[in-house]
């Protein structure tokens, strides 16, 4: 694709780039007055009739294309856009092959420019984390593992006339059906948010087959994201490890921010358990996220839980700058952190008022924010 050219009926309006993307190039586009985000995959390539490939290689390419289409379409098909929890999933509106290349199209988003979500009020955090949890609950109910859950893949959206933010979950390119991940040398994900079993699978540990990579992989990342959104940083760990998942995989303990409410700390601790089966389901965590008193940080950072949370050996992460939660550079390619705002995601599926499936009160983005207790 080229800037100024037509890709099917999408007019490519920006110069294609691989900024923030490892396995694709992307650009913005317009069609019928609406704006889109178009991604061109580097692999697979559908062979041309006059391709330089041998017949056997063409056969392999066709097989790879078929498998690629099946995986993407199965995720697209499984997610019902009318589902009550689907409003904050930024899923594909188009997926096609043009020439030799595959393309995926989503609505263009204009995320809010929020540098420090951990400074939000407990009520704002409840809405933000609740909408993220709702999306994750839907995926897991459908047996889908997002596979690359991290703040960079969450765009924060502020509906008009509201001070509340909702979480738009993007980039399903690494998603897979629970227990059926891509091969270990092809699986996606980010080492900062990777679960212990993901690290072992990636390394080819014979004890960790594909069936060991389930929705619990996302739960580990969700635990780390909760900690990040609530405190501004990942949990601390021994500096000899480069990520929490590696530390847990090596048997080390993560040190949670002592300002966390005890109930929240217990939930995060359970979510980052080394054993996937020990991690609580999203529903259980969501109930806690509805309790705003659990989302307020303790005023006294000296409050610790002896025997459960150790002092940081390096003392660095606590004062580290917050993760880039406004997601200027997601793996799918960045949606601009600033720009015309606020609008709904692509204008078609704003966050809705609704009754949650488990009977909880709906999270209304219209409710007034509370005083910042963070």
């Amino acid at each position: 694709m080229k800037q100024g050219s037509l890709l099917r009926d999408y007019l490519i309006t920006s110069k294609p780039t691989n900024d923030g993307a490892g396995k694709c190039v992307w650009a913005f586009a317009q069609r019928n007055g609406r704006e889109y985000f178009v991604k061109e995959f580097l692999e697979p390539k559908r062979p041309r009739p006059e391709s330089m490939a041998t017949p056997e290689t063409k056969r392999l390419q066709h097989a790879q294309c078929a498998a690629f289409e099946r995986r993407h379409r199965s995720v697209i098909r499984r997610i019902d856009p009318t589902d009550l929890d689907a409003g904050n999933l930024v899923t594909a509106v188009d997926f096609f092959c043009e020439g030799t290349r595959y393309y995926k199209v989503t609505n263009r988003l204009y995320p809010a420019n929020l540098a420090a979500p951990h400074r939000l009020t407990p009520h704002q955090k409840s809405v933000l984390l609740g909408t993220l949890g709702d999306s994750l609950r839907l995926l897991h109910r459908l047996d889908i593992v997002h596979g690359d859950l991290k703040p960079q893949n969450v765009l924060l959206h502020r509906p008009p006339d509201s001070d509340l933010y909702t979480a738009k979950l993007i980039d399903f390119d690494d998603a897979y059906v629970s227990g059926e991940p891509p091969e270990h040398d092809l699986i996606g994900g980010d080492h900062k948010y990777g679960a212990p079993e993901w690290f072992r699978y990636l390394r080819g540990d014979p004890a960790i087959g594909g069936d060991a990579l389930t929705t619990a992989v996302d739960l580990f990342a969700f635990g780390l994201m909760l900690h990040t959104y609530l405190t501004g940083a990942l949990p601390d760990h021994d500096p000899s490890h480069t990520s929490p998942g590696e530390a847990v995989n090596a048997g080390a303990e993560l040190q949670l921010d002592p300002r966390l409410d005890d109930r929240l700390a217990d939930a995060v601790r359970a979510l980052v358990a080394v054993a996937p089966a020990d991690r609580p389901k999203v529903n259980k965590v969501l109930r806690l996220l509805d309790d705003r008193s659990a989302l307020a940080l303790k005023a006294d950072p000296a409050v610790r839980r002896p025997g459960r949370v150790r002092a940081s050996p390096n003392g660095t992460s606590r004062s580290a700058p917050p993760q880039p939660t406004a997601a200027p550079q997601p793996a799918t390619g960045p949606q601009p952190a600033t720009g015309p705002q606020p609008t709904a995601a692509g204008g078609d599926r704003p966050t809705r008022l609704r009754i949650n499936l488990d009977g909880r009160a709906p999270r209304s983005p219209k409710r007034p924010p509370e005083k910042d207790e963070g």
Partner: protein
Amino acid sequence: MNSQQSQYSGNLKYAVDIVLCIDATGSMGAILDQVKESALSFHQRLNTVMGEKGKAISQLRLKVIAFRDFGDHPDDAIEATDFLLFPDQATQFERFVRGLRPTGGGDIPESGLEALALAVQAPWERGLDRRRHVIVLFTDAPAHPLGSPAQTRAYSYPRSMPRSITELFEQWGVPHSQGAVMENSAKRLLLFAPEEPPWAQIADDWNNTLYFPSEAGEGLEEWEMDEIINTIANSL
């Protein structure tokens, strides 16, 4: 933790190998200076970006293949380094790159496909946990077809050359292909080349290829080192 467990714990180790295929013919002049300048600062920029992502490259190696035209002047049609380990062999790399001079080439096309084939056949790292094998090719010209007698009869023509573009594509490979010499999940090809044969066709047919086309004879004004950094830092 037993020994088998410890084998699969610890920090992930990343290996990055990069081969820069640089057209060093006379027409490259100004752009060659730009490529050289960027190549010399490349590893520092890569380390910075990786550091921002909380990752560290455990092993970084660079190799340079400068190419001209076997048919025009076989003596210096290919000038190449081995894989050089950074930062230990940075001085050797710098000396080689600074010594490149835009010269020769005669008329277009050039021996770009031979350089690409040598890159594909390079001794890529096969160890560590995650690998990225990147070929970056800079040229402002189309390429002679592989197997062209004007090329192959040169005394310096490498014996390992594939005899056709189809054979070279087989060496590049697709997932599960038998003839591939590159590791499918690790490889990337970045082409900074004009929309001339065979570059546009390679961009169409080869997987894991990013193509940044330029106008033939008008230099490579649009190429950016960021595209190469992104290819590595975002995919490890």
